[in-house]
């Protein structure tokens, strides 16, 4: 098999690389962290859905999905209350319950994935400790 090194070198030399497109170690790390978090949260959402069904709280799940999972910016508690013929207070309580359970489930999954308590604490802070204000 003949290898044309000279032609290959020339071809490489002609390839213009945009340095901005080369991902840095930091951005790769960020990407990995985000995808890892997405996967953890997706698992937790799925488990929350099953938990709601098991507890007979499908309606809570139906409230949680449009408000907390879909990117609807303009949806309000009042709209949800009207749509599901509930009081705003009931919507508030149902969403608080769903978020609490979501957090609990996500932390349980995280604990299973971590090798030590220290690692769990670190990862939990990374997952739930939102940015400084």
């Amino acid at each position, binding site marked *: 098999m003949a290898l044309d090194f000279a032609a290959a070198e020339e071809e490489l030399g002609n390839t213009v690389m945009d340095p901005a497109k080369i991902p840095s170690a930091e951005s790769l790390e960020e990407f990995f962290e985000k995808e890892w978090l997405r996967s953890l949260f997706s698992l937790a959402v799925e488990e929350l859905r099953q938990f709601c069904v098991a507890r007979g709280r499908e309606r809570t799940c139906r409230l949680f999905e449009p408000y907390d999972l879909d990117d609807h910016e303009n949806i309000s508690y009042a709209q949800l209350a009207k749509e599901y013929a509930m009081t705003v207070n009931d919507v508030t309580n149902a969403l608080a319950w769903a*978020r609490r359970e979501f957090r609990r489930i996500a932390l349980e999954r995280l604990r299973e994935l971590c090798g030590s308590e220290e690692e*769990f604490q670190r990862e939990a802070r990374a997952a739930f400790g939102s940015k400084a204000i």
Partner: protein
Amino acid sequence: MKFLSDKTLEHLREAAEVPDLAGTRYRLLERVARGGMGVVYVAEDEKLQRRVALKVLDVPGEDGELAQRLIREALVLARLEHPGIVPVHDVGTLADGRVFYTMKLVQGQRLDQYIDSIASILDRLRIFLRICDAVAFAHAHGVLHRDLKPANIMVGSFGEVLVMDWGLAKLLRQEVRPSDQAADPEATIFEKPAQARNSNAGIALPSGTTGYGTVMGTPGYMSPEQARGDIEHLDARSDIFSLGALLCFLLTTDSNASDAAVGGQRLDKALKAICSKATAPSPGDRYPTLPELAQDVSRYLDGLPVQAHRESFIERLTRFYRRYRFFILLIGAYLLMRVLILVFMRR
């Protein structure tokens, strides 16, 4: 499985971060700040109908290092009853497993934000003395702050000065009883306890044994020994270093201040010497106790010579003039009048 967008991830993160206050007497109002260990919210104490600051950890569990640190911070604050130290009201665990404590809600500004409104260098020094007062009280009770910096000082709307964020505080010995204090006025000699106990609740006060080599604090305000992680040998002089750095900040931070001395260009040699002595790299070269640093600043304010600086004859004269300016001018005016009267009468 539903795909979660970046926006949804952030929303879920924020929604799940909100503490579950079910079963407590508190109602969440707003999020105000994030500290090193958790988030601080404004909450309403529904029983007492007042607003409080609620500090809650990010992570659940009472056994983790952070939880122990937060509980220790609350217990340390509870034993430090001083007007310059924010009082703690309650400590506990939320339904979601996160440790929290509530404290007085301080309405005011952080010192690094408030400094622009302090025009006079003398007013800045008076604020500094109030900070020293609170920290000296803590030292007398065997507590080192270890994170003194402008961002951890609050100036309330009525001018009250409060030392905040005792999350890195180090307990050096058991609380000094009033009788002990009377017997030992220089009560800044610290011994590390095997394990201190909260006398009220019988709760073991986490000793917060930070291992050798662990570096905690804020660069620029952290003493060299703290920056090295030499935790075992930290004593009051480490906080004195931080206070010296804080004093430099107060004296050199340029603002809209009208006082020409603020900004460092014409800073008095005595003040420079106080800063230098407090921030000496070697603990042995610093003020041995905080009251001595405060005393030097007080002496400067009173127009007296300071321990940190040996003044020249000219400096002594200048200080004498500053201190007795009114009387000197009065006597000068009287003498001038006498001379003028004599001259007028001879004519």
